[in-house]
């Protein structure tokens, strides 16, 4: 009975979404304040009923209700409680409910934190989100009902959660990724609302900028978590594989990165308006396309959910209606947008446009590489796969050029910058970067590698330009402290995120070219030296986990005779499904990771195993953290709050209902 209540609640959320997508938008069109005032309560209602659905599904997982089909398919009575609850998003239906619920959460946040915007605009934004929710909830009810039952005889136990998913990262990676993905729906809704209203000034850019920053920040975290997970769980020590399901988040991220930069230009200078709107639509399409690829079975991948063509058709219909409709609206309305200012050939506007073009080209080439196997099969009926060489060949040079511009961009001025000024300021910085980039890998690591030098040079270029920029900005202040304080939060946010790019570059450059690995057969007591680390295999023991048995090896690591750590990799057999799985052991460090994966047992207690030394690999994720943090910092800038205050005062002064309806 309880699961049916969940389904019922889902239907109620659908009905409220229908009202939400119709009344407030119609109200905004006809100027009916009452209809518009329904937008916020309806949004809250949708959120409440979706929350009830989600809670009921979680309850079914927690209480092992195997009569619910997805509980049977994804859970097992032996699972520890944290995995029972998170098994909810271990399959297509549950994860889609989570996705939908998160969209309603974003919508609720917009309803709450939008008091400074005109009610008419808010109504349109929430209405557009309501429209998306109709599509998502209908999709669940029609093709992938999470509350589907196995009747009349419920299975006695579940088929178990995929063992690769029984891991801490599975608890945090999917929700974070979805949260970021879905966040771009909000920016999309802002853009559509602006197109619908025909009020295509810079205001919508100012309103949507904090939202875009937060969504981008969360998406960055989500992708980084996925990469970290792949690194330690999948066992080959790679941190990015260009997997067809890894790529859509990256495509969305690249469009999103272009978008947050373009929004800055539109807000500050009132130019690139139609381009910014287009980017908002593209970033959103990237997120929907990701859903489509993962859930339709269009491409084969480690991530793919069980596939079903009817689902694919349905998502394609949602994609067609929302993105197709949005692009059509764009085609009709965009010509009305006029630039409010001109700019010179060498100006910050042009540097940011270059950034946008590079990012969009990168996103498009990842997109092509991802879909090309399918297109090729459509034309020739042969299967091919496009691997990392293609992506690296295209993506890496584009990013290198982007990083060059990243150094110059913040340095340039709006409207016009003279080339002699740029050269005077940055010529010596460029030289210093090259010197540092060549010296650091050769002197510090005592090894020679051209690609590593290039990435170190680029990283040094970013760090030095940031340093110089901050110095020149505080130079005319009496004291360093007051000078640093006078810089805005969004300025610090930008520099933090850019510093993140430098940190990531160091990580990528050094890990890619200085990692060492060795596959070897070791008997108890044997040792082997890799880099300056000595690994000694002590032996294995049998241990018992909550729902698995494991052989656990102990490997002592010493450097120059000093004991460092003992690594304990495992080979597990999960009891419910009988599937084996390997758990590698990692000794993580800021400067290097040591890790060991266990292979097969051989005679005499010997085991085959692979040892890795990976310098600076943590910096890849550390860099992502800086980027995510920087974007949040920028979103928290007080000028958005000041703006709100000012508008509230203005609304009060005018005596119009702006504030009254907002709080009512």
């Amino acid at each position, binding site marked *: 009975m309880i699961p049916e209540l969940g389904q019922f609640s889902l239907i109620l959320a659908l009905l409220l979404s229908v009202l939400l997508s119709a009344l407030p938008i119609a109200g905004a069109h006809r100027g009916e304040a009452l209809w518009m005032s329904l937008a916020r309560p309806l949004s809250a209602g949708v959120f409440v009923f979706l929350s009830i659905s989600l809670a009921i599904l979680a309850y079914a997982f927690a209480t092992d209700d195997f009569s619910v089909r997805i509980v049977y398919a994804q859970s097992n009575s032996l699972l520890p409680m944290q995995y029972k609850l998170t098994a909810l998003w271990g399959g297509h239906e549950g994860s889609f409910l989570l996705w939908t619920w998160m969209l309603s959460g974003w919508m609720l946040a917009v309803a709450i934190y939008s008091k400074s915007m005109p009610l008419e605009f808010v109504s349109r934004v929430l209405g557009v989100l309501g429209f998306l929710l109709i599509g998502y909830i209908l999709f669940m009810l029609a093709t992938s009902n999470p509350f589907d039952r196995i009747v009349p005889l419920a299975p*006695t136990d579940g088929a178990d959660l995929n063992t690769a998913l029984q891991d801490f990262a599975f608890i945090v990676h999917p929700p974070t990724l979805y949260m970021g993905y879905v966040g771009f729906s909000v920016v999309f809704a802002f853009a559509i609302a602006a197109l619908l209203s025909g009020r295509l000034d810079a205001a919508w850019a100012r309103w949507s900028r904090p939202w875009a920053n937060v969504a981008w920040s969360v998406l960055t975290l989500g992708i980084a978590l996925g990469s970290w997970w792949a690194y330690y769980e999948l066992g080959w020590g790679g941190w990015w594989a260009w997997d067809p399901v890894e790529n859509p988040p990256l495509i969305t991220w690249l469009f999103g990165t272009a978008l947050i930069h373009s929004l800055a230009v539109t807000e500050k200078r009132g130019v690139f308006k139609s381009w910014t709107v287009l980017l908002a639509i593209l970033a959103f399409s990237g997120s929907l396309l990701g859903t489509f690829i993962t859930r339709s079975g*269009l491409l084969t991948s480690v991530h793919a959910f069980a596939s*079903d063509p009817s689902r694919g058709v349905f998502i394609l219909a949602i994609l067609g209606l929302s993105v197709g409709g949005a692009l059509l609206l764009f085609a009709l309305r*965009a010509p009305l947008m006029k630039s409010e200012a001109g700019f010179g050939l060498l100006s910050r506007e042009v540097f940011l446009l270059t950034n946008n073009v590079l990012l969009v080209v990168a996103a498009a080439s990842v997109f092509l590489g991802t879909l090309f196997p399918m297109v090729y099969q*459509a034309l020739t009926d042969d299967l091919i796969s496009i691997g990392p060489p293609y992506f690296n060949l295209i993506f890496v040079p584009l990013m290198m050029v982007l990083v060059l511009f990243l150094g110059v961009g913040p340095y340039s001025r709006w409207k016009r910058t003279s080339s002699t000024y740029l050269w005077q300021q940055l010529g010596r910085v460029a030289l210093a970067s090259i010197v540092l980039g060549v010296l650091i890998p050769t002197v510090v690591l005592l090894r020679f590698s051209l690609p590593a030098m290039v990435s170190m040079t680029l990283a040094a270029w970013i760090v030095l330009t940031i340093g110089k920029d901050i110095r020149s900005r505080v130079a005319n202040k009496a004291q360093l402290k007051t000078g640093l304080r006078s810089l805005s939060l969004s300025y610090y946010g930008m520099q933090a995120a850019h510093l993140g790019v430098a940190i990531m570059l160091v990580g990528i450059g050094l890990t890619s070219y200085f990692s060492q690995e060795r596959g070897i057969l070791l008997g108890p007591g044997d040792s082997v030296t890799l880099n300056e680390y000595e690994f000694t295999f002590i032996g294995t023991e049998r241990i018992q986990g909550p729902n698995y048995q494991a052989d656990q090896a102990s490997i002592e690591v010493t450097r120059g005779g000093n004991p460092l750590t003992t690594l304990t990799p495992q080979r597990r057999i999960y009891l419910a499904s009988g599937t084996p799985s390997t758990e590698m052991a990692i000794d993580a460090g800021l400067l290097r990771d040591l890790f060991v994966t266990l292979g097969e047992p051989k005679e005499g207690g010997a085991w085959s195993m692979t040892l890795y030394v990976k310098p600076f690999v943590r910096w890849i994720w550390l860099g992502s953290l800086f980027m995510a943090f920087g974007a949040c910092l920028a979103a928290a800038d007080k000028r958005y709050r000041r703006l709100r205050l000012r508008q509230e005062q203005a609304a009060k002064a005018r005596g119009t209902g702006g504030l009254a309806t907002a709080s009512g």
Partner: protein
Amino acid sequence: MNRLTFFLPVVVFVALAGLLWRGLYLNPRELPSMLIDKPMPAFSLSTIDGQPVSNADLPESLFLLNVWGSYCLPCLVEHPTLMRLAEEGEIPVVGINYKDREELALDWLQTNGNPFAFSISDNSGRFGIDLGVYGAPETYIVDKDGVIRYRHVSVLDETVWQEDFLPAIAELRAESGAAQ
């Protein structure tokens, strides 16, 4: 800028959506329900006791193809039904031992009884992907020409047998009788 340039994105999108739509129907390996009325995918594997087995070894009459594993608790639930079918000789049953290990599978059959004419070993799950298997248990009806005619996901107990399989089998037998 020409007004028409603004239509470029929507035109590109429509072309792309058309392509994606076609793509959905392209990859039969990924579309399990599309296998209905299609021949069983070609395979050349071994049985769990190590004999080579391929399409040629399949029964030349209507038979059941049952996906099972020693780890699979629901398989125990449907096991008595399969045993009865095998003992009464109603219809031959061929097993696919899915994502399992041979020694565990043999043990399981030893303990619980073996209803299968033989069990194809698919411990990598690769053949399961070709068939579009969601997971064990799952049962297909395959006709004498090796064409998949019916699919049932999850437990095949007496109720399911009476309500779904018997009518389906009767219909298929009538159809092949009419053809002869």
